[in-house]
């Protein structure tokens, strides 16, 4: 009896391992395909197609990109600036707003919490948002268009931080600081911020991922190439590839200059370079990220 049970547990364990390996490969192989394509000789890539292992190895795509570094470098700088400014401002504003809402002595806290929370239930939609940002604030083709719409401060993060303050920082600590003559801004910077590091790390991570990966703000508000972030540059290249394809279908109606479109391998190399920062930091943040998802789901 016992042996049969142990035997079946072992079989079950092996089946579970096999299935997990299969799913992990399913997640991993598409990325491997792109890495392999970026390292394949262009003529071999056209002849043999995209393969999981390069049919003929070549660094040409990357040396080409190195020569084009001024264009890619600028897009990279835009992405870095937008991610840094957006995340830093957003996280500070979020924490500043969450603190008063966490204080039971603040008379207006329920009404403001509700007003902030309400934005999670109802939104005016893309169209009126677009008209307000573009016609009201004239942010089209400015770098602000990549920072301000949608991502700067969100109700979800404010409530996450507010709950953290309420549940993890004892009110007696704040009372003691007030007796010592600390002002509210001082309490916020000297006590609340340092003590809420875990939740600040969580929202910083989500916010910077959102900014780095965003391309929708650019799609709506940016058409000047000098302001393209890495994601927008990728989007533009891909759209040109499609235009060329349809133009070829219509025979000769080409409105796209073939020379403007990087070769297959180069395109995949650019995509990988856009993904590189995430690939580098991901192993370090993934545990925090998992914790963040769980807290968010429970306390959101």
């Amino acid at each position, binding site marked *: 009896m016992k042996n049969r*049970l142990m035997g*079946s*547990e072992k079989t079950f*364990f092996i089946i*579970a*391992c096999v*299935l*997990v*390996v299969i*799913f*992990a490969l399913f*997640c*991993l192989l*598409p*990325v491997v395909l*792109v890495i392999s394509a970026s390292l394949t000789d262009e003529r071999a890539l056209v002849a043999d197609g*995209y393969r999981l292992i390069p049919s003929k190895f070549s660094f040409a795509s990357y040396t080409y990109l190195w020569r084009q570094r001024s264009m890619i470098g600028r897009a990279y700088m835009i992405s870095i600036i937008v991610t840094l400014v957006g995340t830093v401002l957003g996280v500070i504003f*979020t924490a*500043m*707003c969450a603190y*008063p809402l966490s204080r039971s002595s*603040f008379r207006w806290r329920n009404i*403001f919490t509700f007003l*902030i929370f309400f*934005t999670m*239930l109802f*939104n*005016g*939609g*893309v*169209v*009126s*948002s677009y*008209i*307000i940002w573009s016609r*009201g604030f004239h942010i089209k083709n400015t770098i602000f268009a990549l920072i301000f719409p*949608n991502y*700067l*401060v969100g*109700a979800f993060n404010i409530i996450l931080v507010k709950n953290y303050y309420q549940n993890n920082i004892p009110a007696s600590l704040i009372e003691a600081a007030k007796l010592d003559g600390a002002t509210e*801004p001082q309490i916020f910077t000297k006590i609340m911020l340092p003590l809420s590091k875990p939740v600040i790390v969580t929202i910083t991570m989500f916010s910077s991922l959102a900014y780095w*990966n965003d*391309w*929708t703000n650019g799609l709506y508000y940016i058409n000047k190439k000098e302001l393209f972030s890495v*994601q927008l540059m*990728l*989007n533009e290249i*891909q*759209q040109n*590839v*499609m235009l060329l*394809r349809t133009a070829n279908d219509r025979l000769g109606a080409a409105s796209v200059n073939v020379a403007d479109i990087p070769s297959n391998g180069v395109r995949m190399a650019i995509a990988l370079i*856009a*993904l590189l920062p*995430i690939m580098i930091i*991901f192993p370090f943040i*993934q545990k925090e*990220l*998992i914790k963040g998802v*769980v807290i968010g789901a429970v306390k959101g």
Partner: protein
Amino acid sequence: MPFFGLMAPALIYIFINNYLPMFGVFIAFKNINYSKGIFGSDWIGFKNFEFLFKTKDAYIMLRNTLGYNLLFIVLGIVLSVSLAILMNEIGKTLLAKIAQPIIIFPNMISMVIVAYIGFAFLNSQTGFINKSILPGSPISWYSKAQYWPYILTVVHIWKVTGYGSIIYMASIGGIDKELFEAARVDGASRWRQILHITLPLLKPTVIIMVLMSISKIFNSDFGLFYQVPMNSGVLYKTTQTIDTYVYRALMEQSDIGMSSAASLFQSVVGFVLVIVANQIVAKVDADNRLF
């Protein structure tokens, strides 16, 4: 007063980014003419909505939005729960430590890059599928609408299953280990333990996740439906959703009337569904209700 000072930047931002657009929904009831200005344009009542729902576009985008969402909800639950159970079975082995980051990594990739990955598989001349899997009979994927329900479903599964399983893994981790031990002593196999302990105890989490997804059933992942088919016009039949329609009507056709009508329709129905979902969650499990 210092409280208001601290809150001011976020409150001003939320007013501009979230509340002004809510007041802006009146646009959907106007015939916008920029020469008259937004406020000066004529009121036309529900005309924009009437026009919109008479078009074939409306039927296609509603069918696609709802159809994909239903499919994604069912598959999402089944696959994420299964994956969470499997990950729990392999425990804290080296395999688990390696697999964990790999299965959530696709969620970190921007949809633009996902479109590149899709192109590596699907482009007709050099793509992995046509060259390595179907060398004899290549298929022109980006112009055949009938394949896209499958393609988009696979991409969606690839991107969200691992990430979606995190919450179920946390739930399973919270189950009292003694329950499993007791079942084991009684001679229950792992399979029976999953069937009679894990799954029933996951039920509340599953119900809440399903209700949350249903409340978003009129929303779609704009990136998935816009980027992955590479904005290809011949695929609209199976790739157009409310979100891609709103973008195209607004930015490509400058049709503010239709796009604002579709957009407001989506917001209002979404609002009603969130309220209803919350009422149901409150009945099922009061601790997990949203508000």
